[in-house]
């Protein structure tokens, strides 16, 4: 097992690869209700973040997340830059004393708080908040109530994020570019909620690998088939 900082660096690289693999799907989701740039912007931003954190001397979880946030802010642009980048940047302070289950929960909660403060979206507005909120709640509940292992807790968060992502399909968007479509936004899966799920899934895979545990099977929630 590598140091926690190295593991987070690996995680950022894995997220960049996962986003790149799904960039066309993200763009397709965005073209239906937005300006068709989410896949390209996110792929560019995470690739730059992976490169930037790879240059860090003696990375710690805090410095890696902080650098990731800064890079996303500078590279992603639009609203996704400050939403992803700014929230990561501000939440990174929660990891100043290292990465534990407690600081991970604090990090996740601060991330959610910054995201909703900045974007003004609430649960049910059909945005990334609909994936992040249940993921954060599930993570905390799994650790505090169930005493789950880190991998099991993260698996619960991924399950919750997927359900939240699926729920955006049926909701009218009230924030973000999709909100300009009014009722025509119903029936479309939110691209930001989707990229959030991809990121959560990747964190789970990297964590399980770091801890030499199998990746738990997470119930699939299929709502959009890019090949259909």
């Amino acid at each position: 097992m590598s140091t926690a900082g190295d593991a987070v660096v690996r995680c950022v690289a894995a997220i960049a690869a996962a986003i790149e693999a799904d960039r066309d799907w993200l763009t397709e989701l965005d073209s239906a209700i937005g300006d068709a740039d989410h896949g390209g912007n996110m792929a560019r931003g995470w690739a730059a973040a992976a490169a930037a954190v790879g240059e860090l001397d003696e990375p710690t979880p805090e410095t890696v997340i902080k650098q990731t946030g800064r890079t996303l802010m500078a590279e992603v642009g639009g609203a996704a830059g400050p939403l992803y980048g700014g929230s990561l940047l501000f939440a990174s302070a929660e990891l100043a004393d290292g990465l534990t289950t407690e600081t991970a929960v604090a990090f996740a909660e601060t991330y959610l708080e910054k995201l909703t403060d900045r974007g003004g979206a609430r649960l049910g507005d059909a945005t990334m908040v609909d994936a992040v909120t249940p993921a954060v709640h599930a993570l905390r509940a799994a650790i505090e109530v169930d005493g789950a292992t880190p991998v099991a807790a993260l698996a619960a968060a991924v399950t919750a994020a997927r359900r939240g992502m699926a729920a955006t399909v049926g909701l009218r968007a009230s924030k973000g570019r999709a909100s300009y479509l009014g009722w025509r936004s119903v029936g479309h899966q939110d691209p930001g909620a989707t990229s959030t799920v991809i990121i959560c899934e990747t964190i789970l895979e990297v964590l399980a690998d770091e801890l030499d545990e199998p990746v738990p099977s997470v119930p699939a929630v299929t709502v959009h088939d890019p090949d259909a």
Partner: protein
Amino acid sequence: MKKLINEPDAVVDEMLAGMVDAHPDHLRRIDGTQVLVRADGPIDGKVGVVSGGGSGHEPTHGGYIGAGMLDGAAAGDVFSSPTGDEFERLVDAVDGGAGVLAVIKNYEGDVMNFETALELQAMEGAETAEVIVNDDVAVEDSLYTSGRRGVCGTILVHKAAGAKAAAGGDLEAVTAVAEKVIDNVGTMGMALTSCVTPEKGEPTFDLGADEIELGIGIHGEPGTERTEVMSADAVTAELTGRVLDDLAIEAGEEVITIVNGMGATPLMELYVVQRALGGILEDAGVDVWDSWVGDYMTSLDMAGVSITVCRLDAELKELLAAPADTPALTVA
């Protein structure tokens, strides 16, 4: 579509280089960024007033940098918000120790990037404030939208806030006059043609030869209503009526107006609109303190016009009449 450019990707960079080349006494570019600041800034002890947003609206915002108006502005790519780190560099560069006011047009990308930058600068110890301009009366402001857009009324915010800062107002006072303009200004625009972005190279929306679009924004987004071509007088009556209704302007009140070209409208036509606007306001018993006519907040090569009306009081008149020395607007 023909464009006088080299590469679409280089347009903003080359435009900024040209602006600094043309106005070296006014403008300085922060190396490695798309941020322009006052050549003689930061001004010690003065509140910094900054703005920014996507490019394609020239002379907004860089053209309004100079004594009595903006201390700096960040230029994003065409119709795209500047990134948060560019806004940070901007705020940091103009801070003369008395705080910085950010004048933000109400677009989600602009607001979120600017606010993130302000929060980060505040953590570094900077004193910051923000105002969000949302003068476009064509857009419904409701729970289900992201609210009204910021358009040409923003120039009056730059002017009043810049004058207040130049007069030695503190951050609270400068913010207060910016808010006063925002509370009293409304704008509505229309298009004869769509604009063509350098990247796309073709019209963003299609308008038939005998159609016009009312309620357009400044990014080539479609408007609220499409109609048959109307005369200049009829268009002016429609736009002005919507703005006056929204502001609830009454006879006897004093206003400043802007007839703003969207980028490809001959000045001849803008003056034809001005004539109609003057007549409408006179008939309504509204007292016109000043009328600006020209290209202030454009949308690339869109043909069309927007009409801005702002209710005035003694303080705003004094601030709008105060000296300004910028590439695009001079008040002597």
